[in-house]
């Protein structure tokens, strides 16, 4: 049924400003469009509707595909250069960009950025959460279009239309309940409707969809419980990859544990990290089993006793801090290179002595002689 009700024209998408997609494609402003918003609001559907309505050929790549650098290069990269077989216009659709994993699809994002630059065809990207820093470059390059959760009345009207067309009997009240239930997720609502219709009649509703567990709840289980059965499955329904969870554990561990508990738990995390390194180096993913067990059961059983009390968990801040520091150190390095070139020294030495040198690098004569650019001068101003 959901396939039956796939929209064929852009204006059949409910609750979104789909004209903006047309605007973008006709304007040629930016080569890529990034449609973001919650699940089931019509991101992918509107791309297909656009294709049907205006006769585009779509080349799709979604997160079920591997998206390492080579894959993206091979598939999207080549497609972006070729003309279409029958002279049809082409759109490249990279679905669920936020599903590109930092580690397993190593280099994927960087390659994607390159593909966008070179592509001869328009590229549409979709994603739920695109405000992570790893998407900075992508966001800068693309035009952004937000899809919002759809108002339940609009969903209700759509459901009603579907029932009417299919000659299904219903009560408005029940249909409204159904429309309200899925938090603006149109796809889920149509699916629910399909499942509630038996013999052209609307029947009893059903259980709530089991939504993804929040990472905070999973952490709470691990930090509070000592029951192996509970612990073992603690992270299984969390929609984050293990490395992200590791950062959360690290950030919040000391809020929950102290003394010997803390020491034991950190020993576990340290081992987790060793496995993580081995997986990365050898590409031997079996080790994930151990990584995962140590993170859940290992950390959970590190406490001598069950713990009570409520702790508000913090989002890991380290990666961002590191990213900022890295940018800084790269600036430092580029300045050190310039110093080394002019003073018969090694880059290493100039980098090491930087905290002393920083005092006079910004003097006019010196900055000129080193040929520092505006960025670097600005940076030094902040360092001193």
């Amino acid at each position, binding site marked *: 049924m959901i396939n039956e009700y796939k929209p064929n024209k852009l204006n059949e998408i409910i609750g979104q400003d789909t004209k903006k997609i047309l605007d973008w494609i006709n304007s040629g402003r930016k080569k890529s469009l990034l449609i973001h918003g919650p699940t089931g609001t019509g991101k992918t559907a509107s791309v297909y509707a656009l294709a049907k309505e205006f006769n585009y050929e779509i080349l799709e790549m979604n997160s079920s595909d591997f998206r390492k650098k080579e894959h993206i290069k091979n598939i999207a990269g080549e497609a972006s250069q070729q003309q279409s077989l029958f002279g049809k216009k082409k759109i490249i659709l990279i679905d669920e960009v936020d599903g590109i994993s930092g580690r397993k699809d190593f280099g994927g994002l960087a390659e994607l950025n390159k593909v966008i630059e070179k592509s001869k065809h328009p590229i549409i990207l979709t994603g739920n959460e695109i405000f992570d820093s790893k998407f900075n470059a992508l966001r800068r390059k693309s035009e952004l279009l937000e899809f919002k959760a759809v108002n339940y009345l609009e969903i209700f009207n759509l459901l009603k239309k579907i029932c009417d067309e299919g000659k299904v009997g219903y009560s408005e009240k029940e249909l409204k309940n159904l429309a309200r239930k899925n938090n603006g997720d149109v796809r889920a609502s149509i699916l629910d409707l399909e499942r509630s219709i038996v013999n052209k009649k609307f029947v009893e509703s059903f259980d709530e969809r089991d939504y993804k567990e929040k990472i905070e709840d999973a952490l709470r289980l691990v930090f509070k419980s000592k029951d192996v059965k509970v612990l073992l499955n603690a992270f299984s329904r969390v929609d984050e990859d293990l490395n992200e969870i590791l950062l959360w554990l690290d950030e919040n561990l*000391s809020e929950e544990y102290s003394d010997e508990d803390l020491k034991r738990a950190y020993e576990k995390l340290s081992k987790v*990290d060793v496995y993580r*390194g081995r997986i*990365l180096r050898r590409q031997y993913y079996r080790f994930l089993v151990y990584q995962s067990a140590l993170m859940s059961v290992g950390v959970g059983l590190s406490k001598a006793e069950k713990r009570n009390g409520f702790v508000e968990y913090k989002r890991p801040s380290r990666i961002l801090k590191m990213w900022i*520091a890295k940018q800084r150190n790269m600036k430092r390095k580029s300045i050190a290179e310039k110093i080394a070139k002019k003073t*018969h020294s090694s880059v290493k030495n100039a980098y090491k002595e930087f905290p002393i040198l920083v005092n006079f690098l910004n003097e006019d004569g010196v900055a000129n002689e080193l040929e520092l650019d505006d960025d670097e001068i600005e940076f030094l101003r902040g360092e001193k």
Partner: protein
Amino acid sequence: MKDSSIWIERFRPRDFKEIIGQDAIVKRIEAFVKQKNLPHLLLSGPAGVGKSSLALVAAKQLFGDSWRQNFLELNASDDRGIDVVRNTIKDFARTKSIGNSPFKIILLDESDSLTRDAQQALRRTMEQYSRTCRFILSCNYSSRIIDPIQSRCTVFRFKPLEKESINKIIDNISKEEKLKVNDKARAALIYVSGGDVRRLENVMQSCSTMSREITEELVYEIISAAKPKEIREILDFAVKGKFENARDKLLDVMLKHGLSGLDIIKQIQSEIWSLDLKDERKIELVDKCGEVEFRMVEGSDEYLQLESLLANFMKK
């Protein structure tokens, strides 16, 4: 170079007379230059005592105006692989010199950081092209230079500069730059430079941007900003059971000074012995350091590993 705005260049000696200290070595090399012949040289000694300066002076005296074309300076700590030897160095060495000089010079600074392979490759090049090219290698530790290279070079060992020489340099600079340096400040400068003239001049130039009168306090202020002393603080936090302060500080120090996990663990390990703990605990902790360092070398996340180490410092 007199006109450079960077003092280590402005005050770099321009001829043999201006080189301060190392009298015996200077005399020998000046003699080589007079004969218009120079063997391969290995200049070994601590940083900032005049090794590169001497090489530069020698090249300028030998080649006169064409010194830039006949002189190649490379820093091995930045390009330390075999490719540099096989490409850059070889290409330069085998082409003829320009002007009326019979050979060219390659100055290979910090050559003790060349990999073994690169050194092996270098030894053939030195021999093959010795007619057209002479090498001046400088290094901190000659023991890290393989024997076959040492045997092809005339070795000169530079000593740390004497106090007298450093005083001369300070006098010279303060006269030129119209700075006032009192005795205490002078002692401080000598102390923080540790005999490294490059460092001395950098510190003096830093001070000069703040005041024409260099004081002891100013010198130490400049230096303390540059020296991470916080490792001790981190450990003190941890021992007192203030884990969160310790880890925040740790991240701060690593990021602010751009230190690697290995840099940090070296300092932690040497700091352990001075902590207020039972000796048995100390050796336990040192052992733990070893384990953590091993994990880091294996390629683990440095910060996480250090955190797990810090958790061990918490008292029982």
